[in-house]
């Protein structure tokens, strides 16, 4: 939040999830950790992998692949936990995200960032705020706040034949949110 008002940082950390490459602004990234022992929390959603001890802080870890509707992360030597700081319901929250491998830090000018693709294309645009092309490969810039504010598993990749189903899912998510909001109003 403050980053925007002070100076915009133009560095992006890129990482792999499966075959796709994604990137986030480094202002959101606090740490990159090697795999640690994750303590599973029973009875929680599948994408919530558990918690780790980060220098005395209990940090939740999310399997980003499951969150994005891919198969669960398989642990390899390259698997990393990227600790990010995101804004959630007006609070700053730290969260660890599992990625298959960390690639590089890219310096990008705003002019290099292309607008997100429209719906109907190969990728769903809600969680992507831009695309960049590096060596004939597309890297998607993720909006982590939006990714984590969705309760359900989301699908970044959207195949056209499944398009309708996914949109329904999306609507359900929105509906749920509305219910939650009205509930919280009742309480207040």
């Amino acid at each position, binding site marked *: 939040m403050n980053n925007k008002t002070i100076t915009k940082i133009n560095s992006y950390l890129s990482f792999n999830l499966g075959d796709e490459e994604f990137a986030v602004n480094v202002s959101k990234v606090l740490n990159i950790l090697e795999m640690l*022992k994750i*303590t*599973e*929390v*029973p*009875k*929680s959603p599948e994408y*919530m992998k558990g*918690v*780790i*001890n980060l220098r*005395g*802080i*209990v*940090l*939740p870890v*999310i399997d980003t692949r499951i969150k994005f509707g891919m198969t669960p992360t398989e642990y390899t030597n390259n698997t990393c936990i990227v600790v990010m700081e995101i804004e*959630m*319901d007006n*609070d700053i*929250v*730290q*969260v660890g995200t599992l990625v298959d491998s960390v690639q590089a830090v890219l310096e990008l000018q705003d002019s290099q960032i292309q607008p997100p693709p429209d719906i109907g294309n190969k990728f769903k645009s809600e969680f992507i705020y831009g695309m960049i092309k590096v060596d004939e490969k597309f890297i998607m810039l993720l909006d982590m706040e939006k990714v*984590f504010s969705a309760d359900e598993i989301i699908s970044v990749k959207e195949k056209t034949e499944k398009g309708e189903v996914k949109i329904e899912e999306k609507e359900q998510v929105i509906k749920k949110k509305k219910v939650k909001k009205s509930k919280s109003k*009742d*309480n207040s």
Partner: protein
Amino acid sequence: MDKFRNKFIEEATDNINDLEDALLLIENDPEDKELIERIFRAMHSLKGGGAMFGFNTLSEFTHHLETLYDLVREGKYKITRKLLDVTLASVDHMKALLANDDLDAADLRTIHTELSLQIRKLIDNDNEEKQKVVIEKPQNDQSEVKSYYIYFEPDSDIFSDGTNPLFLLDELYTLGECKVFAHFNKIPEIEKIDITKCYTYWEIILVTSEDVNAVTDVFIFVEDQCKLEINEIADYDIIQNIEVINQISKIAEEKTDVGVSEIQKIIKDFSSSKKQSVSLDEMIKMKGPLPSVKENVISSIRVSSEKLDQLMNLVSEMVTTQARLSLYAEQSTDGELLTIAEDVQKLSRQLRDNAFDIVLVPVETMLTRFQRLVRDLSKELNKNIVFVAEGAETELDKTIIESLTDPLLHILRNCIDHGIESPEIRSQLGKPTQGKILLKAFYSGTNVHIQIHDDGAGIDPEKIKNIAIQKGIIKKDATLSKKEILDLVFLPGFSTAENVTGVSGRGVGMDVVKRKLSEIRGVVELESEINEGTTLTIKLPLTLSIIDGLLVKIANSFYIIPLSVVGKIYATDHENVVNKYNNLIILDGEQFPFYYLREEFDLPEGEQESEQVIVVSYEDNKIGIVVDEVVGEYQAVLKSLGKMYKNQEIISGATILGDGTVALVMDTNKIISKFSQDMFNS
């Protein structure tokens, strides 16, 4: 400047609270001089501070109140209910002024004018009476001159906030004739003198017609920064007596301090030749009450709660690190290391206990608000209710106290509105017309219990049952024990009030109370007898940040079960707990329902031959929970799982073990209630 303003607001809030407190106390004991003094002092500080920091409206407003209470103090005005009503309303207004001194809001301005008018009316009323008194006064004045001995030693750093002690002496001169003896014996050698420090102190003999309060008021702003002693030494003018003064000056020159006893001795020697003699007994009596008020030694300091939170965090970290050290030392063969580790363990335990003690706050701090609520609300509802608190010195973690106030206010509101009947009904029932609400706080093991008891109408179980059936909460033919019926009031959307009042009965009520309390790991119990009253018992942990727990293992994960719920631990054969349809186990000839946690947590069935059954208490029942292995006792520093896990109910937090792994803290109550629901639903 803002920094100072904030400091003032903080201090003023304290003063206002103190004022409110004293006002409520004085209602029961209108003659108490000390309380009047306290009220006056609070007002005086508010006025002075307000003017200094630009809260002019507040200052001016308080000034009028002060004038009024000056009359009370002089005994010219009696404390009446009307007076207290106006003052309490003014106190509320002062709180508002503190937040908004400019009278921006229109309603604030109306209140301000209204209250100012009422205060002026009260003062004017009084002036008529005062006239009569004033007429008599002048004659008294001459004969009623008194001599005071004042010992005034400012703290050496008094200059640092711009106070000039000489101005205070000047002010004394305005009260009457003074004889000042300055002492310079504390001034160090010239090369050691720090010019920013004050080394001089004074002994003063003051002859004045004003009373001792006027003298004390001169020093009101430096009270905490000096050693001050004010004693009445004679009820006539001793400065007139040259011999006495000469003798005192002689001693003052030779000796360092003259001291009150010395002066009194001299006076006594001379007064035996004088017409009036003051016996020693009387002098002691005169001396008696004053020093106790004035000898202010700093016994406490003000620390921001942020710093305390920080301290608590550090202590928690320290306990965690110490657990690591102990673990490492045990594994090593170095005897020296082991000794050090044990010492560190001992120290950190002491440090922890001390630090936790610091953040404990007595229940008393909440009581003023409750007193006020009971007073105002009972008046509004035309009920006669007295609020009594027992065990107010019981201490609780400050975060618990903070989150406890609102639920308790709600409970009290219920007691006043629904519990206690109107005086007419009470007398019909043969009860004393005055209802009583008793708040009792006491320790019970590592818990604190807070009980709120009213001697009102009580809750009719039949009525509750009917409402519950009407609202479809329970089935018509359901058989419930009385306790189960009473517990229905804690369900959302349940209100027994037949007509909704502004006070309670909106259906959000007891369920919110219960939820709020469970957030601080509190448990509520309700007991009630028709026409005898209702008792609500809240059981609370002493502190939130550390718990004694039982460390257990399920699959590869460690869990902590709060020791407070653990009854017994049994070992049993594996086949006793799996593939049972009734989920009952017989241990020691007793039958327990149980939950096999591996199964409930969707983990594969364990392979070991014996299982551990931990019998925990759940409400009034004992229920077994089955784990793989019991590791031992563990002091768990609680950490939150964070916002991402906000929907996770059965785990109340996490803690970090000596080797750095994370153990999850189970909320057994939630686990049992959740799994028993699941079972019914499936």
